[in-house]
């Protein structure tokens, strides 16, 4: 009989540190996620006289809310299908064919992804609003074919302005799956007599299907959560959806209970989709098999390559060129119409930059919020990641799972939960920047955790152990070995949070006050006043700030800010 080898007992100092870190991370998650959620559930079940299911009954019986639920489902499903229709061919073209201008195609997806969804919506309103839309006017007044006009204030319009922000999820996941299928998988089918199509159907298709389906589900989850486009394009056409319904419930007098119940139904929908995605991926994830083998040979498209390229260019035109050029044109036109270029002006820029005092406040607030959120999310992510990978503490896995919960929470739901919580806590943070910071941090914790986890995972523990063996203490080791090695990964994570936080609208729109207004809210409010020229100018300014911040941050951190498949999994 031999006793199993015992590890050397850890120095007691380290045990202390572990527990402090654990407590800190747990506390952060409780305050940011658990308590607000608990109050959301509580609020949905409390009426004027105690416990009640009345709010849920209202939510599922009122025609208005059922219609909103149905619209959200239609929007999500149609968007998911179209995202595959657009994203999969692009992914295939880039990873498997000799189509020209691959970098351009990839950038199209990346830029679409980075563009704030509400900007696309505003741009398309300028092109396709029933009467004043430029394209509609052209079709009606110049071509004389009023039957061909397109009303953007409709479900079809809503889908049109949403897909540019969701197809990149499918594109990124499908491209990485297609690239990781080992060439020999397909070649085995070929040598057995299967032609190109047969091979695609019998081998490649099934192998990348989990990734494509997963991308479609993430597209679904994101599409239904985008408050901006649903408010800008949906409301005028009376296409109500869950986020806009919940938003409307905060009009005076606010109906907190019903909003909470509706929010929870929304969460259930989101979680169901994400659950399906996880389960499907877990059961049928093949793409990591093989791996070390060779890349498949590129399909030589011949003259068909120009057809494929034309498709990619069309996507670029709809998702990138049309929105940006439209906003640019509107922002410098005295009046928007077919002859807009005859009367150019910079007055809209002068207005939003010099006269409209909200702008400067919004810019400063958004920069503070985005950098604060990014820092906090990465910090908390590092704590959770470090505990998970470098310690054996009980409960660390639970912490890791708990930190992913916000994936299932649409932005507006986070806002409702925070309102429910902080209105009942005697701390006056409602209406301040702080509550928005808490909302953002809660929302983006999953990104921080994922990035930190990936960053730490790449560092072989033996590097740290070597430092410990040579006598460096725990803190010293962390500072001089772990942190420098993890820094590029952590910085990439910081940017991953910073960019979406800078353009956040769904949660901010319920939480802001005039003092804590953010960039996206400023654009949205200005849009509500109907001032199209200034809105376009502010939108362009917003985009410049986002671009400038990305460029600056990338320079400083020498990191790369391209979205990866990993990033694609996180809901807006």
């Amino acid at each position, binding site marked *: 009989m031999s006793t199993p080898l015992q590890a050397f007992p850890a120095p007691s100092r380290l045990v202390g540190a572990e527990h402090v870190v654990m407590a800190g991370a747990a506390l952060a998650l409780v305050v940011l996620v658990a308590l607000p959620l608990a109050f959301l559930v509580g609020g949905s079940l409390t009426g004027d006289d105690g416990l009640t299911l009345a709010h849920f009954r209202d939510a599922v019986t009122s025609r208005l809310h059922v219609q909103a639920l149905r619209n959200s489902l239609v929007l999500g499903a149609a968007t998911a299908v179209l995202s595959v229709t657009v994203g999969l061919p692009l992914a295939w073209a880039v990873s498997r064919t000799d189509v020209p201008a691959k970098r351009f195609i990839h950038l199209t997806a990346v830029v679409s992804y980075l563009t704030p969804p509400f900007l696309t919506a505003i741009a398309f309103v300028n092109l396709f609003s029933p009467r004043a839309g430029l394209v509609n006017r052209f079709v009606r007044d110049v071509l004389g074919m009023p039957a061909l006009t397109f009303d953007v204030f409709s479900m079809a319009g809503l889908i049109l302005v949403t897909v540019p922000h969701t197809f990149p999820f499918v594109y990124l996941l499908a491209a990485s799956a297609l690239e990781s299928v*080992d060439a*020999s*998988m397909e*070649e*085995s*089918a*070929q*040598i*057995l*007599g*299967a*032609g190109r199509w*047969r091979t695609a159907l*019998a*081998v490649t298709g*099934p*192998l990348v299907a989990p990734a494509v389906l997963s991308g479609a589900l993430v597209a679904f989850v994101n599409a239904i959560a985008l408050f901006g486009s649903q408010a800008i394009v949906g409301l005028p056409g009376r296409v109500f959806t869950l986020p806009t319904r919940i938003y409307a419930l905060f009009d005076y007098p606010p109906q907190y209970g019903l909003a909470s119940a509706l929010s929870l139904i929304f969460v259930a929908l989101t979680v169901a989709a994400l659950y399906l995605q996880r389960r499907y991926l877990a059961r*049928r994830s*093949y793409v990591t*098999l*093989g791996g*070390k*083998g060779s890349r498949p*040979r590129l399909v030589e498209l011949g003259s068909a390559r120009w057809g494929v390229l034309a498709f990619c260019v069309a996507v670029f035109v709809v998702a990138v060129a049309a929105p940006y050029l439209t906003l640019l044109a509107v922002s410098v036109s005295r009046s928007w119409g077919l002859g807009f270029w005859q009367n150019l002006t910079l007055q809209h820029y002068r207005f939003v930059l010099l006269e409209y005092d909200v702008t400067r406040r919004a810019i400063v607030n958004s920069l503070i919020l985005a950098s604060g959120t990014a820092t906090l999310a990465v910090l908390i992510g590092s704590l959770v990641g470090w505990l998970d990978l470098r310690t054996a503490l009980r409960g660390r896995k639970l912490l890791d799972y708990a930190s992913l919960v916000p994936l299932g929470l649409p932005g507006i739901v986070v806002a409702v939960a925070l309102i429910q919580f902080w209105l009942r806590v005697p701390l006056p943070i409602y209406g301040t920047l702080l509550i928005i910071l808490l909302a953002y941090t809660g929302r983006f914790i999953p990104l921080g955790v994922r990035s930190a986890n990936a960053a730490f995972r790449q560092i072989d523990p033996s590097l740290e152990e070597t430092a410990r063996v040579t006598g460096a203490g725990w803190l010293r080791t962390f500072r001089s070995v772990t942190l420098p090695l993890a820094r590029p990964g952590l910085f990439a994570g910081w940017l991953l949070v910073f960019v979406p936080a800078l353009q956040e609208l769904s949660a901010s729109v319920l939480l802001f006050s005039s003092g804590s207004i953010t960039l996206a809210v400023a654009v949205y409010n200005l849009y509500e006043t109907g001032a199209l020229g200034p809105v376009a100018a502010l939108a362009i300014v917003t985009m410049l700030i986002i671009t400038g911040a990305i460029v600056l941050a990338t320079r400083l951190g020498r990191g790369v800010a391209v979205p990866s498949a990993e990033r694609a999994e996180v809901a807006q």
Partner: protein
Amino acid sequence: MAGIGIEHVTKRFGGVTAVSDLSLEIGDREFVTLLGPSGCGKTTLLRLIAGFMAPDAGVIRVGSTALSTPSGVVPPERRGMGMVFQNYAVWPHKTVYQNVAFGLEVRRVGRAETQTRVARVLEQVNLAGLERRYPSQLSGGQQQRVALARSLVVEPGILLLDEPLSNLDAKLRERMRWELKELQRRTGITFVYVTHDQSEAMALSDRIAVMHAGAIMQVGAPRAVYARPVNKVVADFMGLVNLISGRVVRAGADDGVVAVGGEHPIGAPVPPGAVSGQTVQVAIRPENLRLVPASAADGAGSVPGRVVEVTFLGNLVDCHVTLDDGTRLRIQVDPGQTPEVGQRVGIRFDGRKSSVFG
């Protein structure tokens, strides 16, 4: 009739010439092994035969039909060959049965016949009963057999195998070797087999083609290539060998003499063209050297030296001996005759079995 003719084939990747003006005839029903170090172009040659790429120069024929030329290639799916990949490439989303039946489906074989043929081939490779398993539920060896069965079930005239055993552990590798050989005998399929393991090549092949830097150095029966390597590269690659330098005393295939380890003459097959006094390399395998007592080292064919290292390997003992001029030799002896480190010994060369290179 499935002989393969490879004529002056060249394949370049950018600046790298992976296969260089290579010619090789492979007979019908023959088991030919392409043997060489990693990166010498074996896989490239195999993929050229399969039709996955076009040669930059040369022709590949099967029977009398040219299948690959620089201007056109019959695609793999119309060659009717089989191929087993190094990583097996068993489809993870199909069961064992579905994997094996795929080739028959493509050929539109009927349901009943498919079932019998799949059952028969699974029997052959000892996988009967595992039809419904997914590859993730199989061991490496079993996956390897699925890959094999999948290629065999369509009864190809030619089977290409790219290091099919290299991912298996030593014991299994040994057994699969035997099974492959047996299979090839039974089916009469032409095997083109790629490996970097010379003992595998020796055990399996009718003929071995030793490759180096995209070219074939030597083709022949395993024994012949082992006993009579045409150059240092082949000698070095075909098992353990001592490469020592010597000086020609007399040229001649049968009565040549070379001096090694100072001025000790041994008989060796010196190429007739060599001139007396010329420096040459002598390649001699450990089994053609024998340790004798130091006192016997004066006689003809024996060279004195000193034991510097002794390693016990189980069934034999590996000894390193330095000759008086510093030449180091590796000799394998019976454990019963293990010498002491530092002991002076004599070494008897069976010089007729050595090879001499200029």
